């Protein structure tokens, strides 16, 4: 149909209504829509509010959980401080590095800890330095070693009578006749051996966290543990 040159709005509207074919829904669409409607009739009106409430509670829990005070085991807390000290040394070096045994009297006086025997390094670990530290309101001592690959190891001794070590943290280590069961804790990408010697808590920290480093780190623990005997200074 040829439109007139100046068709009015009304006549154009009328043409749209009259001339455009109207499509009716096919039977299969009608059936599908009706089928979709059927389950809704059996819907449980209480389900939506219950699910919404559960989802809200879950979201609120996830949002506020990090804000809730979390119990931190005192040993873990101390390990965090030791790791922080290790990290500080990695980044800026030790503050008052001294060479044993020349500085031993001064170190004992400042740290309150004496060393009856000390691991001064060997073919695998090189002694780097020693200094007094103050961590978690405890005076102590830190010794630093470096291995052939450049890993820094920090050995820290702090007074902590009765420090608890959970059984699940312990790792059995056997070297010849010697058997040890230190705890291995991981924090901030560092591994820390934790053990007791009398009333002292001992820590050995390194960034050796991979599976292949684990055996070497065990070996370093044994070297330091065997050759170091700290005691509370009188």
């Amino acid at each position, binding site marked *: 149909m*040829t439109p007139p040159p100046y068709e009015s709005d009304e006549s154009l*509207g009328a043409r*749209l*209504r009259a*001339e455009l074919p*109207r*499509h009716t*829904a096919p039977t*299969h669409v009608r059936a599908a*829509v009706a089928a979709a409607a059927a389950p809704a009739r059996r819907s449980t009106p209480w389900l939506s509010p219950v699910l919404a409430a559960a989802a809200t509670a879950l979201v609120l829990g996830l949002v506020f959980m990090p804000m809730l005070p979390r119990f931190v085991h005192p040993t873990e807390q101390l390990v965090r401080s030791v790791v922080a000290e290790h990290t500080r040394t990695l980044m800026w070096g030790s503050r008052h590095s001294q060479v044993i045994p020349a500085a031993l009297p001064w170190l004992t006086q400042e740290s309150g800890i004496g060393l009856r025997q000390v691991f001064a390094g060997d073919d695998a670990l090189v002694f780097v330095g020693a200094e007094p530290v103050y961590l978690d309101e405890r005076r102590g001592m830190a010794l630093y070693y470096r291995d052939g690959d450049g890993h820094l190891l920090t050995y820290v001794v702090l007074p902590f009578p009765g420090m608890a070590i959970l059984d699940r943290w312990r790792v059995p280590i056997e070297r010849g006749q010697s058997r040890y069961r230190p705890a291995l804790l991981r924090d901030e990408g560092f591994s820390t051996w934790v053990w007791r010697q009398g009333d002292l808590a001992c820590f050995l920290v390194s960034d050796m966290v991979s599976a292949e480093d684990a055996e070497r780190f065990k070996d370093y623990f044994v070297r330091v543990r065997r050759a170091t005997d700290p005691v509370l200074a009188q």
Partner: protein
Amino acid sequence: MASGDFQRAALEHLDALYNFAMYLTRNPPEADDLVQETYLRAFRFSHRFQPGTHLRAWLFQILRNTFLTFYRLRERESALAEDGVPTWDVPMFHDAPEESSSAVEAHTDLERALRRLPEEFRTVLLLAEVEGMALEDVARVLACPVGTVKSRIFRAKERLRGLLRDYAKE
């Protein structure tokens, strides 16, 4: 409105919605999908429908929004497909290109002209003139002020007249 009443009332508009879907998609399989998707959404979100408002406008609004959502998705997907993204397992409307073999042919100049209008103009004419909706309801479907609807109707008709004139000269 009770659930059963809502569904019965909604089903009364099935033919009108299907007609609108056909003019939007120009393709029966796509129109089938669009209408079914519209009803699924309407039933799922029936609690959001405010009794006393126009159910018809609400359903048309769902249909158009669904169409625009999938249409835009299809456009993005087709662009991605050139980069090697597989074209199978794609959502609604992705199976058939715009002018597939199943697309309905335009038989009259009026249909041809209507097809060439942008979606905003085509929709406003279909709703206001073909479906006879009140301007307020059209505005609700399009989510725009009534003034915009009036303006679009005016411009759509101008464009339609121009196209019809061109066809008359051919």
